[in-house]
């Protein structure tokens, strides 16, 4: 077991390096620099002094060749310094830390909601195969997969925010700077639910299929034949075996959820990293973009690792073979 974990960790480091390199190359290729980031084309009035441009380039090290800049960036990164934002002049890491909690809150709530909800719905559908409930659920989950998230968000905004004001329209809390857990959860509910819909639909379908497959398998038949109660058969044998793969499926969905959060955070002004990243992209604030890309990749990598370990703990076959 320990050996397995160590092996996974060893792979982890070169991957992190590779990710940083890819991220850096992408940023270098993007148009714009800190100087252009200073000019807001929508309200441009006066020109910018060449001296300021030169000083800024020097400050951000933009006058050095790209590989050198990468090594410097990497060196800083190792010390936890992600550089300074072009737009604010502030350390990127400070800016990201503030965004981490809302994003994790949103994505993990959606992840749990989607996975657990999907399992419940899917298992129930499987147990009542070919019932109206089953067909209706299949249909709804198809719709869930098929409608673009932003459109669902807009419909939700229209129906349950404007028409029937059940949920707040935007933000993380109602009062800026005043944190209240219940208020925060109240703001979280709608965006997290909408973000989870796609995952909910996918995992419902998955859980249903897996459950059906296991239910018709030999050992479940055997278990039944042994005279075990139906509850025991489903709970102990079928359920466990059918849903193990969902751990992997769900963590593999994490990057997609982070992607989906871009849209949801935009729509509901949820102050997470997605919103932050889109703004940084629009404003050509590349140090921020690099930081966000790197941190999200890191989170995904770590949760994959955790999922692998978890899986290995639950299913001993993984540890030995591969």
């Amino acid at each position: 077991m320990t050996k397995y974990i160590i092996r996974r960790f060893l792979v982890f480091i070169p991957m992190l390096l590779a990710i940083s390199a890819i991220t850096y190359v992408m940023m270098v290729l993007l148009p714009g620099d800190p100087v252009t980031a200073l000019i807001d084309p929508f309200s441009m009035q006066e020109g910018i002094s060449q001296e300021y441009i030169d000083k800024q380039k020097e400050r951000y090290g933009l006058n050095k060749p790209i590989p050198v800049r990468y090594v410097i960036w990497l060196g800083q990164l190792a010390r936890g310094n992600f550089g300074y934002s072009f737009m604010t002049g502030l350390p990127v890491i400070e800016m990201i830390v503030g965004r981490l909690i809302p994003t994790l809150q949103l994505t993990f709530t959606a992840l749990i909601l989607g996975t657990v909800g999907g399992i419940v719905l899917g298992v129930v559908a499987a147990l009542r195969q070919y019932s109206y409930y089953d067909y209706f659920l299949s249909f709804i989950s198809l719709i869930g997969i098929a409608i673009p998230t932003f459109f669902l968000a807009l419909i939700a905004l229209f129906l349950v925010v404007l028409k029937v004001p059940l949920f707040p329209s935007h933000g993380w809390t109602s009062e800026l700077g005043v944190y209240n857990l219940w208020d925060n959860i109240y703001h979280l509910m709608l965006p997290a639910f909408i973000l989870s819909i796609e995952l909910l639909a996918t995992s419902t379908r998955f859980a249903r299929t897996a459950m059906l497959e296991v239910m018709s398998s030999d050992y479940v038949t055997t278990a039944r034949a042994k005279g075990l109660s139906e509850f025991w058969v489903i709970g102990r044998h079928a359920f466990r075996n059918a849903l193990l793969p969902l751990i992997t499926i769900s963590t593999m969905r994490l990057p997609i959820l982070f992607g989906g959060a871009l849209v949801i955070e935009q729509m509901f002004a949820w102050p997470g990293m997605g919103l932050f990243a889109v703004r940084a992209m629009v404003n050509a604030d590349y140090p921020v973009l690099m930081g966000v890309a790197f941190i999200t990749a890191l989170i995904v990598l770590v949760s994959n690792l955790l999922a692998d370990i978890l899986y290995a703990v639950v299913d001993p076959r993984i540890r030995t073979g591969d």
Partner: protein
Amino acid sequence: MPSRLVKGIWLGLVLTALSAVALACSTETEIVEVIKEVPVEVQVVKEVPVEKIVTQEVVKTVEVAGETVVVQKDVPVYVTVPKDRIVEVVKEVKEIVEVEKEVIKVVEVERAREEKVLKLRYKEAINHLNPFRSTSRPHGWAWNLMYSQLIFKDDIAGQWSPDLAERWEAAEDATSYTFYLRKGAKWHDGVEVTADDVVWTYNTALNPAINPRPQPLALIKGAQAVIDGTATTAEGIVKVDDYTVRFDQEFANALFYDKCCSLVIAPKHILGDVAEADFEAHPFHTSASIGSGPFMLDTAFVADVGWGVKANPDYFLGAPLLDRVTFEFIEPRDALFVAMQRGEIHGSTYPTLTSEMYQALIADPRFNVIGIQGSIMRSFMFHNEFEPAADFRVRQAFLHALDRRALIDAFWQGNGTPINTPFQNPAWCDCAEWDARYEYNPDKAKELLDAAGYDYDTVIHNKTYYVDRGDFFAAIQQMLAVVGIKMETVLQQGPAWVEDYYNKSDFELVFAGFGAPSDPSGWLDSQMSTAAQNGGRYGNEELEALIQAGKKGRTVAERAVPYRAIAEDFIDRMPFLPVFRQNEWWFKNNRWYQPVLDQAGAATSFATIEILPVFQGGAWNKYHPEQWDLKPIAQ
């Protein structure tokens, strides 16, 4: 296929269709206003048997988050904090006069007044509160609420009015300006504002490593040396005494107020010792902003989330009526609109909505839409070295081909006036005659193109950052195609566009919103001067000489000479093609009282939106924020 499956699918389809129909047919949006529950305490009359008569008025204190509000007998008291945050401390007053048994009334807090919080939405690229690095107009909101200038553009009086300086005077020959600061103005940390702060601020603003745009100040004596890095302070910025500052100019500079006085004064005692290299990352710009304005930083600034300010009770013009103002980041217009409808926000720092939204706000008595005299020119500009359009007749034909009225009506809610010259001052512009030129006339456009020998195979690439206005450009392309001009539009994100236009001068044609100048020199400096980026490459020595001559004119008449020369050149040769000039349509919840905006009557249609004049492109949101108010929700 089992029939139940079919039924299940039909059931689903019917439900979906029904909800779609319900959505489509639902009636006018209900007026939903979320009213925060205000804890109202009934008058509690407690009978207290006492043997002592209280002579002093202090009956009870209410402790609120560190502050102590003294409650006076028989005077209703308003406390600005929700009930649960109030700690009641009843104090017996010690002074004894007589010994007698009597019952007195303890006056309780009668009603906790709702805290007045003005909530505004923002969406722009404001990402820091560094007073020297204001990259965009929206920063103005921060400066106007938290900081003071020497004097400010007063949109109601239509003139410069006192801010930190209570009076000021200019030398007869416009070579020197003296400002007399008011005594007793204080920074938010209690330190007094003095001439030292002003002198330090202006000198720092000349440092190009700190301020990206020192050029407007360059006419102060010795300023150029500071900009060039050969001096650290300008000799023309003179501290006369603790409350008097004089600015000596290189030469007669009639534009001094316009160019220099919108700078916000920053605290020397905090930033004065910060090294140049540490300046930008200083926490002052996010969490420790200290100004001298009517509001002070309350909630630290977080990029793309928001920030908030609270009333400064010691403001030199009196404590503000509002308790707090918060700025909340909302990007999509629909979310903004919903938040407006629900009363969750009262206005926006940026005035763009779709026409349906404007229509809804006009129709709703809770809101008003107010026009502010236009200062934006939506314009095309050809690169001066772009061969196919080198002949000015091609550029003229370009405008003749556009039905500008139809474009304005279809894409900008009719809000706009076609113009042909960026110089809209009658002193150097025959505006009525000039702006009537280049009317929509495709036949004339064709004639001009033929006369210029235009190569009809040319495809002109138009770069613009209006990424969400693809339809507008499609319409323009269609109009141009009628006369044979082929145009394609390249939609770019802001920074990429800025790079191509300003830094690389790599384009054939651009479309942009240019700030319409109140005085041409700033605009010419940024767009046409060879001393700056000169993006379109139209600037040349001759034009440069005229631009410089314009700056040196002491009176309007003197400046009119070079400016008229430039304007007359422009109107014929059209190096710059203004398409139309636009007013800004601001909108707000009527609960929010703002002296400038509230001058306007209630609009009932697009046509009745009142357009308010402003002073020299002034900022209405600078107008006495301490007088802004939030009226109670109408029952």
